[in-house]
């Protein structure tokens, strides 16, 4: 095991009277492939937004690679080395695939030579099997291809930790395989990945560790087999029986 890359301490978030994330703590080492699951409304997306700086936590701290990142603007978090995708894919529609790749590259290093960046972008695109689309407008991409593009953009940032929010949602099985391969490849490269998905099969197959959220709180954290048999987790998914 290597160093701790991402560390959450007692992170919480309130919206009005609603406790969306309730004192969640965990840490991520590198390389690691973590699945994050939980029923709808468990706070997965809110937690992602908190980690990526889209929301400011109401309490708690987040450290990335030894630097405190909670409350920092999203772009600072990104530059510190935490990349994320969105649940609903956000391709920059009226820019070409190559431009989509260049934005993070240039944001990371505005003085970088464009040919170098383009070369790197092409390598990543060919890894993702969408090299033939380099000069297409990203609005022309299919849902699965957009997911791939979004993943590719992340690699341009060379992040330490990647959060993938529902990378398989609404994607054709054939393209899902490509995304599987991609995730595995990135993991082999030594990055930490947090995978959020409703696709239990994929999560159990890919991840080496599972984090389960329910009602904003972390209810289980451990290897998939243990978590699978945890009564609290079963309870969260099957619902609480009133008669008990």
């Amino acid at each position, binding site marked *: 095991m290597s160093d701790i890359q991402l560390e959450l301490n007692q992170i919480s978030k309130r919206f009005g009277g609603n406790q969306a994330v309730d004192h969640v703590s965990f840490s991520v080492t590198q390389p690691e492939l973590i699945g994050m699951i939980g029923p709808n409304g468990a706070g997965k997306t809110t937690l992602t937004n908190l980690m990526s700086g889209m929301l400011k936590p109401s309490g708690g701290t987040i450290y990335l690679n030894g630097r405190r990142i909670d409350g920092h603007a999203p772009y600072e978090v990104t530059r510190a080395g935490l990349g994320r995708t969105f649940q609903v894919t956000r391709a920059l529609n009226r*820019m070409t695939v190559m431009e989509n790749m260049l*934005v993070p590259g*240039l944001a990371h290093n505005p003085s970088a030579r464009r040919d170098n960046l383009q070369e790197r972008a092409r390598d990543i695109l060919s890894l993702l099997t969408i090299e033939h689309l380099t000069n297409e407008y990203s609005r022309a991409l299919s849902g699965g291809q957009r997911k791939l593009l979004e993943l590719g953009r992340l690699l341009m940032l060379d992040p330490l930790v990647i959060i993938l929010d529902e990378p398989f949602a609404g994607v054709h099985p054939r393209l899902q395989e490509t995304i599987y391969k991609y995730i595995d490849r990135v993991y082999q490269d030594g990055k930490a990945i947090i995978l959020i998905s409703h696709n239990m099969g994929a999560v159990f197959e890919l991840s080496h560790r599972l984090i389960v959220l329910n009602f904003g709180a972390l209810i289980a954290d451990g290897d998939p087999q243990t978590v699978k048999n945890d009564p609290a987790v079963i309870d969260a998914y099957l619902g609480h029986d009133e008669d008990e």
Partner: protein
Amino acid sequence: MALFKRIESAIDGSIGRRRLGYALLGLVILFFLWFPNDTSQSNYVKTVFISGFFYAILSSSWALLAGIAGQFSFGHMAFMGIGAYVAGLFARDGITFAALGIALTPESISSVGAIVIGTIVAGAVGLVIGWLLLRLRSAYLALFTIAFSELFRIAMLTEYDYTGGSNGLSLRPLLQVADVDTARQIEYYLMFALLIVCLLLMYRVAHSPIGMFLRAMREDEDAASALGVNVVRYKILIFVFTSMIVGLAGAIFYSDIGSERIIPEQLEVLQMSLIIAYAVIGGMESLLGAAAGAFISRYLLEAMREVVITLPLGLTLPDGSDAFVWETGAWRFALFGLVMVFTLRYMRNGLLYPILDWFSGRDLIMQETVSIRKSDDDVAADMEDSG
């Protein structure tokens, strides 16, 4: 269509579109440089050209702000007005900071100094407004900038003790040339040079990494910031930059270049709507398109003041004249509005941008327009086919 395709391939095969485009652009610039030497042209036409250049700067900078960066501001004319009014007031009254012991008398300020200060103040106000606008998006942003612009106009109209009210304010002349013809000639070149400089500056910004960040922001602010783009900084930056450009243009144009005084009427929403209409017709996402749109629209609107249709075959009207004369009045603007609406609906990229794009040889618009979103199933089927 077939003919067009043949011409297209003939050009591609010989000199290439890009080179042809540059050649044509060079010719256009040469024409503008030669034009004031054409003694058959009246000073009136030159004045139309000068104001055409001025509006080209306004429209193209709005295109940068709204079309490329996606900030739909209606306050553009107000920043132009700030530049002009501040330069004018400063050159007339000077400024005193009693507390600091600094007193600048009007005599100690050159007209260039006044213009510089007008530009800086326009940029500073742009900084404040840009910062306030961070919280607002699309319709709210448009409404806030309208409110700002109207407040400024009303203040300029009402504080007539300082600003001259509806009579306007005359700025200190930038040039001291007695002969009208020579003066026009110099003014013409000055404004043309300003247009070229502004366009080059804006082109430089739009084609630098910043331009790419601005477009990314326009497409999706959250996604851009998740990719490491400092959205706040670039939003404010583009606001300050465009405010300074229009502030500079306003301060120079009203320094007796267009022989006009800056009047509050210039700051009305209606004037702003003209700027927007020029940009839309030229192509909102292209600096050169918007500039050309503004110049051509302005020229046509002037030329269409009176439409004369000479009757053929020696026919005469009942009153004995052989030409039908139509004072177009407001109809030309009505027609212009109609063109704008239909352009928006059916030619999203404007009427001129597609032409410019064709010359660039990249066919971006064509590609973008025909690109149709594929479904995952099709993609998967393609993948099966290819193995």
